[in-house]
Structures are given as structure tokens and as C-alpha cells.
């Protein structure tokens, strides 16, 4: 059982990444009701752009900033150039269009940045910290720390700021929000910018540990989607809970049962949750007030 703390730590670190990806899903779900299947590709693109920036001798911080800005612009352009042209941007249509955008994003990254896997150095080196027998990669602490900050920031934004509350209003009742002077299009553009930026940040901070390559996005997207479903689609604390739950389950299943069943156990847990609590652990379910 000596490895239990190690397993939990590994779960916490992978789980934080899943949580960041799930956050992107939730932000877009909140404002459009659609599932953004390009989220995983944005994470991949963030990692690839940061790595390319670093390879071009940019300082690390600037390379990460470059990644966040580039992907954010991609997100905004996807919304403005493609989604805004849709005659009826209902949730199903947006979801389908996002799958197309995901495939295009992946191909674009492959054509521009190449097929080779890329990496970044750790933000504070890669000498493991020895913490009473636990060996921790410093990047793990960066990942957990940044995830916490982003989560708190997102929570404050949606609960306290005018913009955040406006976005929630649009999601809840577009017509009423428009009558109050909120532009639903603006809210949607903002949601895409936010989701793309968090995705890019997630991609940049995990690359020192996991590497990245043009074909990494799909799996990350599915894991993030699972985490969002597990925690409850649309719930910000749900993203955090779902992500960490999924990461820990995977890690414990891999370490205590067998690595052959790692993914099976995680997805089984997801299925069970959906059977027993269809809205997710922290989801509220759909209540229509008459």
C-alpha cells in the first residue's frame, strides 16, 4: 500500500488537467447548450504553439502567452467566421459544426507545425522534489496550482462580474436577456474566447510532462468531456470534481488492479454515474418552472 500516496498524487495531477478541459466544455455548454468537441484540439494547439514558440527561442512565459493568444484568436474566429453564419445556431447544429472545426483545427496544426511530437521544459526545472518519500515533479505543482487559480477565477467571473452574469442570463433566457440590452452574440463570442484560452493554458502547462503532438487532442477532448459529464455538464465546481474523480479512478485502477483495466474502470464509473445520476455528481438536472 506504500504507493497509495503516489497514486493519489498522480490522479490529482491528471485530474487537474481533465478539470481544465472540462471547464472549457462547461463554459460553452452554459452559453450555447452545445458540446464543444473542438475543446481537446484547442488544448493540443495550445501545447503545440507554446512548444513552437519555445523552439524559436522565445522565453517560456512569452511562449505560453503566445499560445493562449493564438488559440483564443482561433476560438473567436471559429465563432465569428463559421458559427455566426448559421441561420439557426441551435445546440445540435453547433455541436456538429464544432466537430468539423475540430477536424480542421487538427489538420491545420499538422500542416503548419508538422507531425513531430514536441515538448517544453518544466516551468521550474525537472528535478523531482522529495517530499517524505513522495517524489513530485515540480510541473505537477504548477498544474495543480494553475488549475485552482483558473477555477476560482472562473467561479468569480460567472458569479460576481457583470459580464459573467450577462452570459448566464443569455444561456438561461436569450430573449429576455436581449430585452435587457445584452447582445446574445457577444455572450457567445466571449464564451468561445474564454474556453479557447483555458484550453490553450491547459495544453501549455501539461506539455512539459506529457509532450504534445497534432493527434493528442482527440483523446484529451474525450477525457475532458467524460469529466464534465461525470461532474455535471454546465456546473463549474462539477468540472473540478469530475476531473479529479476521473483522474484518481484511472490512477487507482491502474495501480491497484491492473493497467490493462485503467480506462475501462474510469469509463465504467462514468456509465454508472449516468445511470444513477444522469445529471452528473453536481449537476442540477433540468427543472422547468411553469
Amino acid at each position, binding site marked *: 500500500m506504500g504507493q497509495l500516496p*503516489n497514486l493519489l498524487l498522480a490522479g490529482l495531477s491528471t485530474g487537474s488537467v481533465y478539470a481544465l478541459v472540462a471547464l472549457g466544455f462547461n463554459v460553452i455548454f452554459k452559453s450555447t447548450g452545445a458540446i464543444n468537441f473542438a475543446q481537446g484540439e484547442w488544448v493540443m494547439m495550445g501545447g503545440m504553439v507554446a512548444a513552437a514558440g519555445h523552439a524559436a527561442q522565445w522565453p517560456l512565459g512569452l511562449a505560453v502567452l503566445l499560445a493562449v493568444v493564438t488559440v483564443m484568436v482561433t476560438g473567436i474566429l471559429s465563432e465569428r467566421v463559421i458559427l455566426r453564419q448559421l441561420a439557426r445556431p441551435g445546440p445540435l447544429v453547433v455541436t456538429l459544426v464544432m466537430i468539423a472545426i475540430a477536424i480542421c483545427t487538427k489538420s491545420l496544426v499538422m500542416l503548419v507545425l508538422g507531425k513531430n511530437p514536441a515538448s517544453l521544459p518544466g516551468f521550474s526545472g525537472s528535478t523531482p522534489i522529495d517530499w517524505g518519500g513522495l517524489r513530485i515533479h515540480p510541473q505537477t505543482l504548477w498544474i495543480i496550482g494553475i488549475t485552482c487559480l483558473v477555477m476560482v477565477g472562473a467561479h468569480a467571473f460567472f458569479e460576481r462580474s457583470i459580464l459573467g452574469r450577462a452570459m448566464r442570463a443569455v444561456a438561461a433566457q436569450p430573449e429576455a436577456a436581449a430585452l435587457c440590452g445584452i447582445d446574445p452574440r457577444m455572450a457567445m463570442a466571449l464564451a468561445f474566447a474564454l474556453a479557447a484560452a483555458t484550453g490553450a493554458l491547459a495544453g501549455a502547462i501539461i506539455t512539459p510532462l506529457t509532450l504534445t503532438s497534432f493527434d493528442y487532442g482527440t483523446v484529451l477532448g474525450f477525457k475532458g468531456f467524460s469529466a464534465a459529464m461525470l461532474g455535471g455538464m454546465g456546473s463549474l465546481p462539477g468540472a473540478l470534481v469530475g476531473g479529479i474523480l476521473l483522474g484518481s479512478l484511472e490512477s487507482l485502477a491502474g495501480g491497484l488492479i491492473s493497467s490493462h483495466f485503467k480506462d475501462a474502470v474510469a469509463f465504467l464509473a462514468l456509465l454508472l454515474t449516468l445511470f444513477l445520476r444522469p445529471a452528473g455528481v453536481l449537476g442540477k438536472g433540468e427543472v422547468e418552472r411553469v
Partner: protein
Amino acid sequence: MNAGRIARASLLAVSALLFAPFALAQGAIRIGSILSVTGPAAFLGEDMKAGMELAIEEINAKGGVRGRKIDWFFYDAESQTQKGLTATRRLIDQDKVDAIVGGGNMSGMAIAMLGLTERAGLPFMSTEGAMDIVTPVTERQWTFKSTADDEQVMERLADYFAKKGIKRVAFLGDSSGFGQSAAGQLKKVAAARGLDVLYESFNPSDTDMMPQLGKIKDSGVQAIICWTVTPAGVVFLKQAQQLGLDSRLTLIHSYGFVDQRYMQLAGDAAKNLLLISVKFPVGADLPDTDPQKARIMTLTRAFEAKFKRKPNQFVAQTYDAIYLTRNAIERAGGTDRAKVRDALAETRNWAGVGGVFNFAADRHSGLSKDDLVLVNFRDGSFHLADYK
């Protein structure tokens, strides 16, 4: 009468001599090739295609095979088995080739293709890795391959472990066909050689191997063998270093990981790593007595002159495959398919670039464990670490 017969016989002989070259040159020899130069498997395809191009150009520059030039029909399978099968049908029915060399640089595709070539009774020289391409031989009468079998690779590793007194090892293979077929072969070899093996696996797309490594760390093994061709192998190296395993245990990667890009990504996490490989990447380090050394050096020079970059072991794989086929056609005296097949099966002690090939009627895979070495990565290139 006697004189007349002699005269007639000599007339026949003279005319045979006179017309022989024309009679033999019944048009060109048609060789078809299928590789994936686009799609996910493309990172191997370009180099493998270049190896074939070079071999065919050399053969034709020297006058071809028995005076017949080689006509080469190449198709890109785009890493999709369906496209590979369409191209195979086209090679058989439309281009009417005499042999196919290269099976899409994906083992699964080569296995799908051989269903068609076996039925057509067409010699097929695969340049892919999996052992299932040539076993069971009763169902693979027309199929050969120019790569080493995992069985021989595992035997070579067992030899190394015996030499170093290593008895307990962990095998960490990815869940693809590449990793799992190697695990199957290791199980057989380990039972025969008295190795105690802990089997763990991971997905090719995994980005965290801490659970597996934690388990391996606690199990007290002396070596870890990792089997993958994906960047997950770099994560393995980095996390093993994080746990301090790289300085305590022997870490081994497969021949599929002998790639400079991966070594550069792993950085100093790869400093104690060994890789099992054909001799090609360490040609310059080989002793002069080695039968491959001169051949590797010659190919390297010719390749650099033509393509202005360094060749790798995948180039050798296809270069040898073309020459094996060419030699069989020469010995068969033409392109009669059954004769070419038999001539291939009779290839003995032919020193190619990848190793010394020995085929037999019941063994359609030519390389053996003697063609494999252990290499490491120091100062930006691969070096010989264990020779025989």
C-alpha cells in the same frame, strides 16, 4: 549425315546465342510497391520509399536483372488499409506485376494484403514487422518479410539478461498490435529461458504512467522493457527518471523507438537507456569483421548523395527487400511466380544491409538474433552498447 547434324546443331547454337538476349528481354520486370507516405504512418513511409527508389535505380543502372529493367509501380496507401487493398488489387489485375514489395508500412495492412496476394499466387515481400505476416507458413506460402521477428528480438534480450545476471524484469507494452504481439513472444521466450516477467500495459495515447511505474518499482525487478512506437515512450523515460528508476534499473526500449527525435525529447532521461536494434544505426561502431559494416557504409554514402540526408534503419528494410526479390528473380531465371517463390525460400547467407538473411521453406522471416545489437544514445547519436 554426321557432318550435317553437327552443322545443324551449331547453327542452332549460334542462333540461340544471337537471339538469346532478345528472347530473354521479354519486356521489363514489373515490381509493385505499396507504402504509406501520407497519414499517421507517414513518418516511416518517406524513408522506406526512398530505400526502394535507391535500390531500383541502382539495379537498373547496372543493366537490370538478366538484361531486363525493372518497371516500378508505386501506390500510396495513405495509412488506410482499405486504400492499401484497392492498390493491391490494382497491382494484381491491372498492372499485372511479377511481385509486390512493401505492405503499407503498417503490419495490419500487410496482413490484410496478403489475403489477396496468396489467393493470386503472387510473391509478396513484406517490409513490416509483425510475425503474423509470415506465420503460420502453411497459410503464407507466397509471403516473406525483410524484418526481424519479435521471437528473435526476445531471444536476443534474454541472452543479454543472462550475461548481466538479470532474472526478474517488467514488460511495459502499449495496447496496440505492436506491443501486445511482443508481449506474446516474450511469454514464450521467458518460459523457456527462466525469466520472471511482470506484465503491464498502457494506451499509445497515454500521458501518465505513474500507476504502472509505481507498481513496477515496488516489485523489485532488475530491468524494464518498454514496447511502443508512440511518444508515450518518452513519458515512460521521464517518469522513470522522476522515480529514480533510471539509475537503479536497466531500462530498455524496442527497435521501434530508435529515433533521434524521441531521444532529443527525452533529453537526459534517456542517458542510461538501452535500445534493441538492427545494426544499421550504429554501422560506424561495428568491428571491421562484421559482415554488415561495409554494406551499411556503402548504402549510407549512396543515400546521402541522392537524398542529401542521413538514412535510417527503415531505409535498409526496404532496400534489402528489393534486392532480395531481385536476387530471387535472377536465380529463378525469370519471373515465373512459383520459381521466384522457391528461389526466395532458398535464400541462404545473403548479407544485406539489415543483416544476414536466411529463408527456408518453413521460415519466411530472414533475420536472426545475431543481426541484433543493443545501442545507447550519447552526444547526439546512437552508439553500440552490446555486440553479441
